[in-house]
């Protein structure tokens, strides 16, 4: 325990003669012997754990509030969309359905004619392609496809956000 003064002399001597490694070693002993670490209160650990727990609880509450907000918003938006856009959506869906039906009929008729007249497979495929192009070119059908894609992307983003909130609250 009484090493500090002896090492003090050693440190100063090493420092004077620029022996860096010796000075480094001797000063470590001087420092650790002459300057004990300040005592930490007994309550420190308890207080710190309580503070961390409070932060964790606060974060979890915030994540839960955020999740409830997102769900409420999504439910309200869905209700409003259904209320205001139901007629439009039905008309779009029926246009898409009719377009699909037309394509199917055109395909079947084209196939039957080709079978009767004995034309090749390429002619059947050509008539099917024409029917598909006619379906895609219909503005109502195009809009319906875009709307369905947008709803799917929004649903995916909402799902990802909800899962992210779960992760944060877990941490």
């Amino acid at each position, binding site marked *: 325990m009484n090493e500090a003064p002896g090492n003090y002399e050693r440190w100063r001597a090493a420092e004077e003669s620029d022996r860096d490694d010796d000075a480094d070693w001797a000063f470590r002993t001087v420092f650790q012997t002459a300057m004990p670490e300040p005592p930490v*209160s007994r309550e420190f650990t308890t207080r710190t754990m309580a503070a961390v727990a409070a*932060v964790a609880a606060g974060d979890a509450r915030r994540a839960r509030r955020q999740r409830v907000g997102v769900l409420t918003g999504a439910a309200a938006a869905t209700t409003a969309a259904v209320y205001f856009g139901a007629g439009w959506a039905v008309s779009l869906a029926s246009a898409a359905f009719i377009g699909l039906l037309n394509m199917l009929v055109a395909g079947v008729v084209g196939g039957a004619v080709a079978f009767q007249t004995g034309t090749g497979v390429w002619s059947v495929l050509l008539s099917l392609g024409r029917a598909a192009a006619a379906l895609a070119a219909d503005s109502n059908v195009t809009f319906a496809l875009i709307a369905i894609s947008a709803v799917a992307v929004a649903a995916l983003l909402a799902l990802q956000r909800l899962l992210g909130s779960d992760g944060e609250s877990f941490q």
Partner: protein
Amino acid sequence: MVSLIARITGDRAQAEDLAQETFVKAFRNLAAFDTTRRLSSWLFRIAHNTAIDAMRRSRPRAAMDAAHNASSAGSDEPAAPPGPDPVERQELGRALEAALAELRSDQRAAIVLRYENGLSFDEIGSVLGVPEATARSHVHRARKELARLLTASGWAPPR
């Protein structure tokens, strides 16, 4: 960690609060921790930044001034050459603490990290946000400066 903060800020009373703040910050930013590095270095870095922020918030440091005053008062009367006496060891500790308070905050942190927490120069560099060579230089210069300050306060080198 409490010790590092206490030595950087010179305020032992506040050190525990700042250490607590450090742990809360670490908990909040746990996702940002690079698992390839040492947890202690990361915590020391947050503690160092927290201490520096606290010092900026409250510039006048009463404890440091008190230590400085004590060292000035002691310099009037040259101290005896250090012997194997616990009282002298305590006096050396006080003189060293006063000298430590005179250093620049980055040098002070480097000294504490090196000689109290036993960090390598590389780790000190990552805590202080400087290259290893700069950390080594901080420690070297701080030690030289401590020697100079101790001489000025009567703790002359052996002849």
